[in-house]
């Protein structure tokens, strides 16, 4: 039984750290703010939850588990809220979605568009009503 728990804790913690790194890569590699938020979201919710769950399994039943659950609870409320507030602030602050440059991304299916036309994302994503 304890071996199973140990293995499970191992898996969760390693998986969690993996998700952290993946999200970290995301925040560095994604092209613009709104996509980077996605990477940050992965580490903040999935990565952190998995690592903390692994620690909970490792700690066994007791005060530490209770505190870890509190941390988990607080994290699960605060970090999505913070991300939400950030994106709202960025949207309201007039941060534009950075459309990929024509020379870097091309639509492979749309040959008729010619070499200079890039992929246009959904027009709804682009907003012009900022006050700047």
């Amino acid at each position, binding site marked *: 039984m304890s071996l199973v728990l140990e293995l499970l*804790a*191992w898996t969760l*913690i*390693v998986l*969690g*750290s*993996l998700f*952290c*790194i993946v*999200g*970290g*890569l995301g*925040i*560095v590699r994604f092209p613009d*703010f709104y996509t*980077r*938020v996605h990477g*940050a979201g992965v*580490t*903040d919710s999935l*990565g*952190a939850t998995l*690592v*903390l769950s*692994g*620690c909970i399994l*490792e*700690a066994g039943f007791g*005060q*530490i588990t209770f*505190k*870890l659950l*509190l*941390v988990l609870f*607080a*994290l699960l409320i*605060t*970090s999505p*809220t*913070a*991300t939400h*507030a*950030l994106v*709202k*602030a*960025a949207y*309201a*602050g*007039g*941060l534009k979605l950075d459309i990929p440059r024509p020379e870097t991304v091309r639509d492979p299916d749309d040959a008729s568009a010619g070499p200079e036309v890039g992929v246009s994302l959904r027009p709804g994503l682009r907003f012009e009503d900022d*006050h*700047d």
Partner: protein
Amino acid sequence: MFVVAMVGIVITMLLALSRAVLGPSVFDRLVAVNMFGTKTVLLIVVSGFLVGRPEWIDLALLYTLVNFVGTIAVCRFVRFGNLALDTIRRGESAGGSEGGA
């Protein structure tokens, strides 16, 4: 296993920090700072287990809470340019959109 988690977390911190340094917009930095806070929480939890004194998870809890307060303050500042009023002054943009460095 906690060493593995530690390494993973530190690498993530490195990545988040590089985004906070690179920017380019204030919001990119903000997301990185927020993420950095969460990673610090994990680092403290894991290092508590690593040195065999997991009692100080209080510290991780504190981080979670204070990080939230800081992020809300910054979001409010970005939106309104101040901390007390729900208005910005006429002729100014609250603007967090200009980049740094």
